[in-house]
């Protein structure tokens, strides 16, 4: 139960996470309970299989892409001990992108300068859902692959190809047939990213 799990989380850790992510103390302990309940192997880290065990996530067409976002490339020792595992700090860091924006007032002294849940960082999170090889560009191929994930077998290759072409034409301003992050941001400038990419965490 919840009370047992929180005893494994030290106060210093909670303070650090608070500074880095902006979550409140009680939110952090509640999310730690959740992390702990997902961690079937009880080794303090989540693997991809742990995420896959959530049925509603397993049936999400972009489920794999979302899970992937928790496992950044290269091993930053603070967040992952191994490439295929994410610890609680890494877990919180990813979730922090989805904090609503108005809660920002408390965190003026973040080392990274811009809070994780800023509009730009939220857009970047979404951008990386499409950018499969993490080269900061969405190519036609990558867009096709992600589209295929979303529609399954219900749309033919030609139709999907047209959709991809049209989408790139809409967004591409420098003619390199790829969508860069700034082009991505420009296309979506009128979308209410703050609301659509935020989750209402209870206090």
């Amino acid at each position, binding site marked *: *139960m*919840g*009370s*047992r799990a*929180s005893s494994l989380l030290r106060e210093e850790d909670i303070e650090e996470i608070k500074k880095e992510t902006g979550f409140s103390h*009680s939110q952090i*302990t509640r*999310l730690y309970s*959740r992390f702990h*309940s*997902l961690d079937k192997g009880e080794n303090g880290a989540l693997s991809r299989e742990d*995420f*896959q*065990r*959530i*049925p*509603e*996530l*397993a*049936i*999400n*067409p*972009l*489920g794999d892409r*979302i899970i992937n976002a928790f496992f950044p490339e290269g091993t930053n020792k603070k967040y992952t001990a191994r490439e295929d595992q994410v610890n609680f700090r890494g877990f919180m860091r990813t*979730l922090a992108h*989805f904090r609503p924006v108005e809660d920002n007032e408390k965190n003026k002294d973040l080392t990274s300068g811009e809070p994780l849940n800023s509009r730009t960082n939220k857009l970047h*999170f*979404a951008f990386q*859902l*499409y950018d499969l090889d993490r080269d900061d560009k969405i190519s036609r191929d990558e867009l096709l692959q992600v589209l295929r994930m*979303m*529609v*399954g*077998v*219900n*749309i033919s290759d*030609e*139709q999907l190809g*047209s*959709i991809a*072409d*049209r*989408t790139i*034409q*809409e*967004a591409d301003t420098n003619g390199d047939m790829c*969508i860069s992050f700034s082009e*991505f941001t420009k*296309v*979506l400038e*009128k*979308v209410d*990213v703050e609301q*659509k990419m*935020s*989750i*209402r*965490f*209870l206090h």
Partner: protein
Amino acid sequence: MEGAWEIAFVFFQVWLSIVVGLIMLPAMFGVSLGFTDIYIKVLVKTLEWATLRIQRGQKEQAALPSQSANGIIEKDDGSMQEEIGELRRSHPKNLAGGDFTLCDAFYFCKKGIENIVEDQVTQRFTSEELASWNLLTRTNNNFCYISLRLTIIWGLGVFIRYCILLPLSVKNWLSDLVHITCYRICARGLSATIRYHNKENRPKKGGICVANHTSPIDIVILANDGCYAMVGQVHGGLMGVLQRSIVRSCPHVWFERSEMKDRHAVAKRLKDHIADKTKLPILIFPEGTCINNTSVMMFKKGSFEIGGTIYPVAIKYDPQFGDAFWNSAKYNMVSYLLRMMTSWAIVCNVWYLPPMTRQDGEDAVQFANRVKSAIAHQGGLVDLSWDGGLKREKVKESLKEEQQKMYSSMIIGSDFNEASVGPA
């Protein structure tokens, strides 16, 4: 030292006769001396007082959130169409193309992260979180005291069942009484307080009783108020011994594990049983596994294909007094029973719902869902269509395909003109 032992022995005898006189005998005759009710009242007062004390002591911790929210987040419950529609309203749409926009991914992303933080299914397979803890996991002293008392009572119950009641089960008319009596003793052993509602709807012979499943104790709870034929697998070990003892006093329908796989054989045996109107109603738990009593999960359609009258029963445990849920993935039967013995009490409500039969034009799945909704509604439980089997198995691919299909229809739903492929 000798003197002390003698005194202890005398005390033990006195205590034993008190136990037998005040608990066993009334239990056998179905008479309540009202002790259990008083016990429960005292318990409630104690727990309330203890909770207040703790709340005063721990202000920062917020381990006991005063608001009812046990959830971590507040979700939007819009459908895929609504949410994506909203996303697209602010995006300048190219009418020549299909209805795809880069921000569509936001919807799936947000849903995915919400489900990582809190989902509807995995929480059903662990014990319900209480707003206030009930002293069970912390106090060690009372733990031991209660455990000794209850273990002895339970032990006596087993003794009486095997050595006194079993030989009595020769005659038919007595076997009913025996049946109910042994379960009553079990219930007393567990300090169970059960309230039965709408007894007029109690399952009749030749029918099928279906109930939501939380723990093996469900059987004790229901059998306290009627005789049922059980369907189940033959177990080895402790369960097997218990099973065989029950069989003597009541006809049951036991299957070997291999037979369970053959659905037609199972269905045939059950059909034969209910066709015989003198046979006891069959008790079935269509969820197929223990759920934590906050929801009712998918009912397997097998029992609803057999025909006959279904008598739905809703069982709801009061979580304040003890957690009856058996997490079979985590605890084995023995440690579970021990935990049950040592919880404060088991308080539950049983509602007998009016009988239902399959209507014309309704298939087994729809009928199963109808019964499930009735049970969920009565018990105040969440009605889920997720399969309880997800406790151990992966979710079916077909559900993902449904999501993909829904989304595809949004993309090509509006008039999609394949001819115009040229630049916009």
